[in-house]
């Protein structure tokens, strides 16, 4: 796995790979990918991918408002907020 791929994947996951663990993790990833490459051998022609073990369709909800206002508890239990908003460092678009 080349360095660029690893750093792209790390960025997509918002994880940093520093000097210390970067090499180890890259090695681990390579080994794991090598391990899962076994899947290549399976004959899956015309096989529909399975995304859920349940062969059924979804139950849906009626269009009704059922939620209560829980702003206070949500903001109180958040890492950083004021009376009205969750706060993050200024985003520049």
């Amino acid at each position, binding site marked *: 796995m080349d360095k660029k*791929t*690893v750093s*792209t*994947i*790390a960025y*997509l*996951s*918002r*994880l*940093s790979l520093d000097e210390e*663990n970067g090499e*180890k*993790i890259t090695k*681990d*990833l390579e*080994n*794991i*990918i090598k*391990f*899962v*490459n*076994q*899947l*290549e*051998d*399976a004959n*899956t022609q015309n*096989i*529909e*991918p*399975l*995304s*859920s*073990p*349940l062969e059924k369709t*979804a*139950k*849906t*909800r009626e269009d009704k408002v059922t939620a209560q206002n*829980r702003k206070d*508890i*949500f903001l109180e*239990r*958040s*890492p*950083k907020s004021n009376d009205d908003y*969750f706060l*993050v*460092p*200024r*985003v520049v678009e």
Partner: protein
Amino acid sequence: MSIQYKTINELSQMLKSRDISNKELIQETFNLIDANLHLNAFITLNKDASLLKAEELDKNLSLQPLSGIPIAQKDLFCTKDLRTTCGSNMLSNFIPPYSATVIENLENAGCVSVGKTNMDEFAMGSSNETSFYGNVQNPWGDKLVPGGSSGGSAAAVAAGIVPAASGTDTGGSIRQPASLCGISGLKPTYGRISRWGMIAFASSLDQAGPMARTAEDCALLLNQMCSHDLKDTTSLDETIPDFTENLDKPIKGLKIGLVKEFDLSQLDKEVVKVFEESKKQYETLGAEFIEISLPNISLSVPTYYVVAPAECSSNLSRFDGVKFGKRCDDPKDLEELYIKTRSEGFGDEVKRRILIGSYVLSAGFYDAYYKKAQQVRRLIKNDFDDAFKKVDVIMSPTTRGAAFEEGSKGDDPIQMYLEDLFTIPANLAGLPALSIPNGMVDGKPIGLQLIGNFLEENKLLRAAHNFQLSTDWHKKTPKRDIQS
């Protein structure tokens, strides 16, 4: 009167005949917890609320099925106003504003949630060595792992601290620790138990389940844990039977499948010996063994290690330091907020799985990995469907061996992944499976796995219960009995 190692039925009886009051029972439970702190089985205790509930129960005679039974809840279930960490630094300060459906179900049935148990971080692991809160000790020996990810729950039951614990099983996280700790644990059919409030690891694989001293106790718990929940659209709408019904009905004629592709000759001789003994025991009970083939079973572990990381990489994206959980100190911009919070908040195994997950879903790799794995998953499921046309249940060892030493799996994550060889297939296919103790290897317990067809937990529990009626592996307790 000692409560250690008692089953749910035994404790219920004691409460009914006033041999012990609810308050005494709970107080004793906390004494046991205190006497076993070295196991590190608990992350958060719920003492005040538990004693309060016990007092209430003493005042008002309750007819609830599990009235007064102390239970340890895996710290992956949200418990309202009680810290829920998932074994992670990321949630070390997380106080959920709501409770999981399964927690509510158990508490409505009268259970007293005494505390949240330690676990592998975000349910990723097979030894409870990845928790931010330290390793859990297997009550059966110093420096032995209890298995994972439900290591704390398994240890709490194995040490006789509580008769019951909730666990979750994504690739074997109930069954494998049950095996290594010498207790009984069951993963039901996918969808039997609501996932509302269960912190998601791999959504199409996760299932909650009971962990207890006997299959019968598992059935008692399962009765209360299952429900059809409109808040979880993957929750089954099927009738929930009484899982305790007809448990001791004889199993003469039960067809048990042995998987051709599980090459047991690779296992330790002692492990094979235990398994063969169990086979003989089942033959005595009237069961019939049939060889079945699951041709794609050898691809289970690689399939799992594509699907589970993919789903978890997405499920864990919500941990970003914005709305809940930990945030890094003084981030200078948004990028740093995300990267530093997540890098500090997650341990190495979680990071590895997130990275693998992002990789197998990324453009250019999706078809070769994720799509391919989901196709193989269907092949594996089809194999099971065919097998269950011929047999009632499938039997195998739960694990390749007994509890191993902390740190002994070395630096290679794949060695740890292969621990789940026997357990993973049932998760991929969404089938129910359980583990019961069936022998000892080097003085350490080991488990027997039974896999059933869709919705056939009854068959599994009956087969397990019958085994437990005629053997006493499930009655064994660790040599070091720490009394309160």
